[in-house]
């Protein structure tokens, strides 16, 4: 039995069925991501002074990933246009480029950006013990300049025992009174050789840069993780439509494959549009 309205439009809606379906699905996705973005904004607005990390993400890498996603949107729409013009060979190459962009995005995100965070350590100092660690925090100068206090010492966890953490410091804590450390750096600075010893009883909480670290990282991993799952889903669908099995659909009815590419392209554009909001929210602001 043939499924109706996969190519021709329904008389009552004026659309073929898959297009109605994808837009209903995308409407539910707007609600899902909208709720997460709202949660992020409220968490940020309600964060106590000094408790919201700034400049901890790699801006050049994030910018590169943004460019890759924008590029993939261009290639997917060109793949669809190629099918409309019945140029299967061009479609095949554009689709391959789209798949490659999606895979590169995921590799950079999961293979580079996320692991960098897993290996980073942060210890929030108890408010009454901040003075003891002034040499790593530089809060006297910050108070004079009217800036929010620095409450956390970060770096690579060198070692720990029952009483102390030994941390190879980030430049921001190794040289806290340097004014250039008050702002994020375009190219992230490497961890220094300077080791700080932090007593565990002075620490309010200490963890690697995982979702347990702060509301910021909980939001970051939730939203970018969910977005990454969508990218993975899109890539899997594109691979299916790129494999020889889809050529049979094309040979039977090219318009049917073009419609399939159009709905998956709409999904892909939505996923990329989400990233257009994620990037400034997490990396820049």
């Amino acid at each position: 039995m043939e499924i109706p309205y996969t190519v021709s439009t329904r008389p009552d809606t004026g659309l073929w069925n898959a297009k109605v379906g994808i837009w209903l699905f995308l409407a539910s996705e707007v609600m899902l991501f909208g709720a997460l973005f709202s949660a992020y904004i409220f968490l940020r607005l309600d964060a106590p002074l000094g408790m919201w990390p700034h400049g901890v993400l790699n801006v050049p890498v994030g910018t590169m990933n943004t460019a890759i996603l924008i590029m993939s949107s261009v290639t997917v729409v060109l793949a669809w246009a190629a099918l409309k013009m019945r140029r299967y060979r061009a479609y095949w190459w554009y689709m391959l480029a789209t798949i490659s962009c999606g895979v590169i995005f995921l590799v950079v995100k999961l293979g580079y950006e996320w692991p960098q965070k897993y290996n980073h350590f942060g210890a929030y100092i108890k408010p009454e013990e901040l003075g003891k660690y002034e040499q790593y925090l530089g809060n006297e100068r910050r108070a004079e300049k009217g800036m929010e206090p620095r409450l956390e010492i970060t770096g690579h966890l060198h070692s720990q025992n029952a009483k102390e953490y030994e941390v190879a410091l980030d430049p921001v804590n190794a040289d806290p009174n340097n004014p250039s450390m008050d702002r994020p750096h375009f190219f992230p600075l490497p961890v220094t050789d300077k080791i700080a010893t932090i007593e565990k009883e002075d620490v309010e909480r200490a963890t690697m840069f995982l979702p347990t670290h702060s509301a910021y990282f909980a939001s970051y991993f939730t939203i970018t993780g969910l977005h990454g799952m969508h990218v993975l889903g899109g890539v899997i669908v594109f691979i299916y439509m790129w494999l020889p099995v889809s050529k049979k659909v094309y040979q039977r009815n090219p318009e049917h494959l073009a419609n399939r590419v159009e709905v998956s392209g709409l999904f892909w554009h939505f996923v990329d549009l989400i990233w257009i909001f994620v990037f400034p929210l997490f990396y820049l602001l």
Partner: protein
Amino acid sequence: MSLKAFHIVFIIFSTLLALGTGAWCVWVDLVEGAPIYLAGAIASFAAAIALIIYGVWFYRKMKRLRIIT
């Protein structure tokens, strides 16, 4: 909304992002005095111009090819 129309909307948002990133780089440079951000600003504004040119090219091409869904 067709893929063609959604693509144009996406390019508009991407252009706004590039302009916003450029403005952010200029702001960081002015407030914090970090000249490397000027290079970022120039790259962002160049990307915005490239996206506008691409958007216009895409719109005209689609119109010319009469790909309507």
